[in-house]
Structure formats: C-alpha cells, structure tokens
C-alpha cells in the first residue's frame, strides 16, 4: 500500500515569547543577547523564599491574542506548577496553566492554494520560559546555565489535530505568526526561538474513522525543518503501520543534520509533571471591563487589512495577501502610498513594485522589511521619477537596486549614473534615422506587411540610446518614419 493511501494528521503547539519589557514574575529585562545571567534576580533565579508577582501586561497580551483568534476568554483561570528537574529550570517547576487556561476555543484562518481554511484552537495559556544550558563553556568541560530567558513570558497556543498536510501546517503557522506580529505581542522570529513550534503527528489510512497513535516532534526552528521533520515522520509511521506494525507514542527530536526524527523518550519514560494549582498565585480574574478595553483597541489583522486593500484600493486578492502577510511590508506599503498618492492606480503600481522587484531584492539579501535601507519615501521618489518620465523601467530597476542596497537618494543615483531618460525628439530622431539606415532590409519587410518588426526597431533604438530614450517618443517617431 503506497504512501498516498495514508492521511497525515497534524496538531501544532506554538510557544510564542511575549514582547513585554519585563519578565512574567519579576522586573528583570526580557532583552535578548545579554551576557549570561545579566538579566536575573532572586525571583527568576529561584532563590529560597521568593514569590512570583504577576506582570499584568502578560495577561493583556494573552487576552489580546485570544480576542483576535476568536477564543473564549475565561473570567477565571488558574496557574499551575509543572514539576520536573532540569538545570535550566531554577525552581524545579514551571509556572504554567493547566486545567483552566486563560483562553479556550478560537481558530486560525489562512488561505491554502487559494482556498480559505481554518484550524481550530484547543486553548491558549500563559507560562514562563526556562533558561538555557550552555555546554563546553568552561575549560574543565563542565556546563553552565544562563537564566536570562528564565521567566520570559510565553503564550502556548495549541491547535486541534485539524491539519492534514505539511503545506497546511506551514500556512497555519505563517498566518498565526502574522497575527501575533500584527498584535504586537510577538516578534515572529523562529531562528532566535521567540516563535517555536512542536508538532503532534500521526497517520491513518484514508477514510479511517480513528486517528493513529501520535508522536510529538520537537526542535524545528524553521519552516524548512518543520517540512523535513513532518515528512520524515509521516513516512516513518506509514512504514510501521503499512505492514501491520504499531506506532509507539513518544516524544521525538528532529535532527536537522540528518533530516530525521529520533526517539527522545517513550510514553513510559514520559515525565509525570505532577501538575497542581500554584499556591503562590491567586486565581487569575479577567474582568469584563479589561476584555472590552482590549477589544476596543485591537489592531487591524492581516486578513482584514487584505480585504480592505481589495475593497478600497482595488488590489487583487493575491497582491493584497502578499502585502499583508508581513506587518512591516503592509506598513511600508501604506506609508509609500502616503507619499506617492492613494488612488487605485498608484496602489497597483506600489503593490507591483513591492511584491515584485522589492520582494526579489529582500529575498536576495535576506533582509526583513524592518531592516531595509529602502524607505517608503525613497520608493515613492523612484516611482515619481518613472511617472514624470525621468527614468524608464530599466533605469528604475537599476535605481531601486542601488537604493535598496545603499539607502542612497534616488535623484542622486539617477544623476550620478546618467540614467535620466532622453525625451528630446531631436536626439532620438537621430538615433531612429541611424537604426533605419542600418537596417534597410528590415524596413523593406516592415513596409511589406511584417508589422511585428516594430518591436525590433524599438529595441535597436533603445540599444542605440543605452536604454535612456523615452519609449513613447521612440514609438511615435518610428511610426511616422516607417509610414504608419
């Protein structure tokens, strides 16, 4: 029985670090990249006698996320201790939520191959992050512990097992990530681990009523690795189930070097976390007034923005979707319009450039929108130069390339590199005459009815003028000289 007779079933658990300035239970900074243990205090070091003091901002972010994803925000939720020993977990337990999380239900919408999909959420809860063990940091071979990250607030967002393909998993994650970034609660960075994902994967024969036994896959810090890991795991499970074997429920670790998953601990070895209600924190009460206040101040989300671009600016669903997938790009777009004009034509032009040439450059350089040297004002300036006929298409690309890489002033680039378009009829006419004279046989053919040769003549004139001739003027002159 081939792979295609099986259906993969995926549920995802996302851990998103919240963009609060201070940690969830103390006043220490959440900034990334400091010297080990620079951002610690007795509370996040788990010294004897310390108690957690809740950062209200974390609750606000959780509620904001819950409302944006259509969850039920619980009036009362409970903190719980998740107990296990590990050096990066200073108290020997993680303060999390278990039986009564802050949000239940909700869903994440996204588009897959042009079709609308939603994946249901089980729950969202708040918890504290652990620190990091540092190996090989000391000459005697001993390991160290960096607790800067210990106590950084996390949201755990758990989906139902609604996902049926890796593509769907990735689109779900991209949509969720965009929403979190739009909400200002997370920076969406997979590589630095501020947006992390574990996957529960199982396989079943197509049409089967019951799900197969699932494995939890950890350690996938890019969409590429997620794809590799889930595809590997699905294949592995099918190879077990197909000849009649049984998948063992276990936690598996993805090894990016080998592109494989391997067993980390079996169900029998699974931790018994001995959850119980955290006695140091009273139940969390989220009152209606806070929920309403947060609801009122919810920002526009990616899909609403895309709908608005279609409605108000006449953009295609495709263009609108691309522009809004990254909040920074959408903001770049809006800002460019404020310089370049707000009509549908201007919008279409800006969208074409952003989704085309700019996206290409961003891809080439690997720069996120926030890190571009190109500013909305400069992009608008380049488009204005095109609009006024100062530069043509090829010139504009050259200008954009340089401005994107160096942040230079577009007008200055045009001048320095002599990219300004020639609109002077006399100069162009001379070039046209030269081209016609040099290609007498083609002129003959054209006049004999091969009208499509006009493109050839335009090309030759452009070559003659090193691409600077205004195409409209060239066309008009050629038509006149060739006699219609």
């Amino acid at each position, binding site marked *: 029985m081939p792979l295609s007779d099986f259906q993969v079933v995926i549920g995802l658990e996302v851990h998103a670090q919240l963009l609060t300035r201070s940690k969830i239970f103390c006043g220490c900074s959440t900034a990334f990249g400091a010297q080990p243990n620079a951002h610690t205090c*007795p509370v996040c*070091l*788990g*010294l*004897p*006698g*310390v*108690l*957690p*003091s*809740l950062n209200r901002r974390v609750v606000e972010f959780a509620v904001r996320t819950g409302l944006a994803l259509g969850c039920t925000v619980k009036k009362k939720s409970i903190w719980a*201790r998740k*107990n296990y*020993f590990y*050096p990066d977990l*200073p*108290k*020997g*337990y993680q303060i999390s939520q278990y039986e009564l999380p802050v949000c239940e239900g909700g869903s994440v919408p996204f588009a897959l191959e042009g079709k609308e999909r939603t994946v249901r959420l089980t729950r969202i809860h708040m918890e504290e992050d652990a620190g990091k063990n540092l190996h090989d940091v000391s000459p005697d071979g001993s390991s160290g*512990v960096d607790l800067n990250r210990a106590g950084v607030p996390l949201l755990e967002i758990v989906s139902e097992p609604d996902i049926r393909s890796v593509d769907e998993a990735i689109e779900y994650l991209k949509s969720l990530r965009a929403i979190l970034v739009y909400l200002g609660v997370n920076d969406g960075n997979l590589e630095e681990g501020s947006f992390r994902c574990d996957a529960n994967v199982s396989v079943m024969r197509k049409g089967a009523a019951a799900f197969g036994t699932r494995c939890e896959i950890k350690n996938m810090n890019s969409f590429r690795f997620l794809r590799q890991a889930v595809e590997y795991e699905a294949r592995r499970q099918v190879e077990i189930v197909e000849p009649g074997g049984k998948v063992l429920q276990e936690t598996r670790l993805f090894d990016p070097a080998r592109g494989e998953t391997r067993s980390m601990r079996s169900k029998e070895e699974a931790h*018994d976390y*001995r*959850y*119980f209600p955290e*006695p*140091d*924190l*009273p139940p969390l009460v989220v009152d209606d007034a806070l929920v309403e206040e947060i609801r009122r101040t919810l920002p526009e989300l990616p899909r609403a923005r895309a709908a608005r671009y279609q409605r108000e600016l006449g953009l295609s669903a495709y263009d609108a979707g691309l522009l809004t997938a990254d909040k920074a790009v959408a903001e770049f777009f809006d800002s460019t319009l404020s310089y370049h004009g707000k009509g549908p034509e201007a919008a279409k032009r800006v969208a074409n450039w952003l989704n085309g040439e700019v996206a290409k450059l961003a891809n080439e350089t690997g720069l996120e929108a926030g890190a571009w040297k190109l500013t909305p004002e400069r992009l608008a300036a380049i488009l204005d130069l095109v609009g006024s006929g100062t530069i043509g298409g090829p010139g504009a690309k050259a200008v954009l390339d340089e401005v994107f890489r160096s942040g230079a002033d577009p007008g200055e680039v045009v001048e320095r590199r002599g990219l300004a378009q020639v609109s002077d009829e006399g100069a162009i006419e001379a070039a046209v005459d030269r081209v016609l004279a040099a290609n007498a046989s083609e002129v003959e053919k054209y006049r004999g009815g091969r009208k499509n040769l006009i493109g050839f003549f335009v090309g030759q004139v452009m070559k003659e003028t090193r691409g600077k001739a205004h195409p409209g003027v060239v066309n008009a002159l050629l038509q006149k000289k060739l006699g219609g």
Partner: protein
Amino acid sequence: MTPRAESPLDLTIQELGRRLAAKELSSVEVTGAALRRIEATDGKLGAFLRVMPEEARAAAKASDARRARGDALSPLDGVPVGLKDIFLTEGVETTCGSRILEGFVPPYDATVVERLRAAGAVVVGKLNMDEFAMGSSNENSAFKPCHNPWDLARTPGGSSGGSAAAVAARQVFGALGTDTGGSIREPAAFCGVVGVKPTYGRVSRYGVIAFASSLDQVGPLGRSVWDAAVQLRHVAGHDPRDMTSSTRPVPDYLEGLEGGANGLRIGVPREWFQGGVEAGVEKVVRGALATYERLGAKLVEVSLPHSRYGVAAYYLLAPAEASSNLARYDGVRFGLRARDAKGLREMYGETRERGFGPEPKRRIMLGTYALSAGYYDAYYLRAQKVRTLIRRDFDRAFEACDVVAGPVAPTVAFKLGEKVDDPLQMYLADIFTITCNLAALPGLSVPAGLHPEERLPVGLQLLGRPFDEATLFRAARALEREIGALPAPAGI
C-alpha cells in the same frame, strides 16, 4: 545565675519600651544583656543557630541615637528580637535548619525582616527549627536539638522551637516564627509564651523559605499578648511581592486590647473534648473556659465534624506542596552540591541524599506520590475538598460564636526522643492546630496555666474569623489579665 528580679530581660516589650523611652535603659544595655544571656544559656538550650553580636550591637547603638534625638521608630525600637532561621537575612547565613542550605548567604531580606528593621527592632540572631519547618519538636533540626527552658529533657515543640524557647528563656523579648500546621502555637504552648498564627495572607511570605505555600504563615511570639500584638502590627500588611498577601488595612491591635471578655461568645467544639486530650491539660483548658464565663463570656457548643479529617488532609496537601517547593534545592545554584558526583543525575541524587534529613525526604516522597498521575484525584483533590468542608464547618460555627476555644496540643511538652521514631505520633501532636491552617483562619496560643502535676505550661488555643486577629488578642488579654503571668521557666 544572677538574681532574676533585677534583670531587664524579664521585662515585657511593653515595659521595656517605657523604660527605653524614659531613658532608664538603653538598647545597648539590654542588647548586651541579651547577648550575655544567650552566651550563658544557649549551650544548654540550643535555641540559636547563629548569633549576630556585631550587627545587634550596631543596631542597638543606632536605636539609642534615634531615641536621643527623639526619633524612635516604634515601640519595637531598640528591642532585641530573634528570627526563626526560615527568614532570609541579607548577608547572614540562612539554613532553614537544613544541611542543604549550609553556607547559603541570602542577597536580600525577607519582607518581615525589612519591616522589623524599619521599626527599629534589634535582630540578635537566627533561631533553631525543625528542618524546613517540618516537625513538632525541633528534633528535626539538622544541626542540634533545642530544649524546653521549663525542663531541658523536654522538647520546646516545633517547628518554631527555637523561637518559643528563646522568648521563654529571656534570651530575646520577642521572635518571629512560621506556622504551617501549628508550628508557632504548639511551641508557644509548650514553652508558656503567646504565639500567633495570623490569617493566611495577613503577613507577607516573601523571603520566607516555603514549606507548604498555601498553609505557611508568619507570626510573632512574645511573653505577653501585648508583645505579640505589637510585633504583628509591625510586620503585617500587604506586600506587592506576595500576591497572596491581603490588601486589607492592618488595624491597631493594641487599641481594643483591654476590652475584656464580657459578652464574648466562645465556641467550644464538641469534637475537641471527646477524649484524646490528656486529663491535666484538659483540666487547665476547662479552667480557662470557666474563667471566661466568670468574666461574662458565653460558652457555646459548636461542631466541627470534619476536623477529624484534618490531619489526613494536611499530610497530603502539605507534603504535596513541599515536594514541589523543595525541588529548587538541586545543587545547581546555591547551597550544598555533591561536587564529587559524576553527571547531572548523580549530582541531583547525591546532593539531595546528603542535604535533606529523614523528615523532608519522607514528605517529599509522600507529596510526590500524592501528586502522581493516577493518584492526584484520590489524594490531592480529595484533600482539597476536605479543606473546603473544614472551612465550612468554621463558617457555620462562627455564626454562633466570636472565637473558637480549645486545647493547643493533647499534652504538655513531651520528652526529647519520645516520639522521634514514630512519625505518626509526632503528626498527631498537631491534631488541634492543623484545621486552623487548612481553613486559613487566625489562631493564637495563650498560656492558660501550669499542668497540675507536671508543672509545665498549658496553652489555650483561640481561633477567630478571617482577619479578626483583634478579637483573638482582646480575648487572650482578658485571660492573661485574670490569671497573671506565668513564672519564669525554672529549667534554665
């Protein structure tokens, strides 16, 4: 021993404050006297794990300077006090009676320590206790036993045994302890002093080493009701660093202290007088109740039907929380580490094997078991339900009475070694005190007299409505005024 009558150490905080204010005594003098008394007696008593002579003398000097300027901070300014070694003291080793914290020097002061210092109190040292506050006799101290100043062959009670013994033995004028299941009230009763377990949430737990977080509460011990009340007044109140601490304002407990017992409705739980209390103890307790009646109080029979499940519920809930609270003693960041261990697992295992004594180990195992998958509902969850039922019993009782009164412990102070090999017998010493913690109510132990044969102190326990410590103080003061102070303990 020097003639006792002349010693300023026999004074109450109330009287000492008056003498300090009148400049008849200086804090430097009384602090010096306290330090000499500790020096002279503690070899036999064992109340102190650490004496802080330099810090104490400096604090006393600063206090005298404030007095001279007329800037006394509070009635506690210049008064030598002790701290159970469960309170974190910045720069001063804090062990919680455990080897696993040997050498641990905290980088911060507990909130209650800050508040005592802000009131001008002179901290003279850290007091002995059962390891991690687990015990009822102070015999679980990893360092040394503490003795009862009435009879050195007996325990002072526990876990705040050092606190009660030091106050009773005139080494300090007052002390702070903690009470999770009776750990202030039982030693107070055994040593003949006043001990208060305030309402859960009344005093900040920040900087107090946790045993069972939902039950632990800080409270004072003193040689009079006034002395206990004045200490509580200065350490109680909301602390933003403890989210379980109450924002209710702290009343002036001293104000209504002399209000008497006339008209007071005293609930006497039927279940607490159905056997199980040693006859002499019961006699003293009943005598105290009779005194109240004479003073115009009304005795009302009440019922606490679920209190019989208190010990069972407590010994699931408290160990469950303890098993989690004690996880941080893993050798990674502070305290003991088994340096010779190979690898992480062995380091964890060896550190905890060597660092914890038998009682913490027993409770970690009990608690881990009670929280385990498959057992949680039957143990932890059921115990929580019992807790709710016990609280409801009290709510109902307090419809008919203002305070509940009864024995603190079934016996007077027992002999060192008597119960040390029988944990269950030891646990039953807390049978009357545990329900108060489970119900989060305030409780107080006040000397009710001496046992008719043993000539050892017997305490009366008073329990009140949540945050109604004021009524407990008033009721306790009425009894204290009537029966007079106990004599100084003869054992030391």
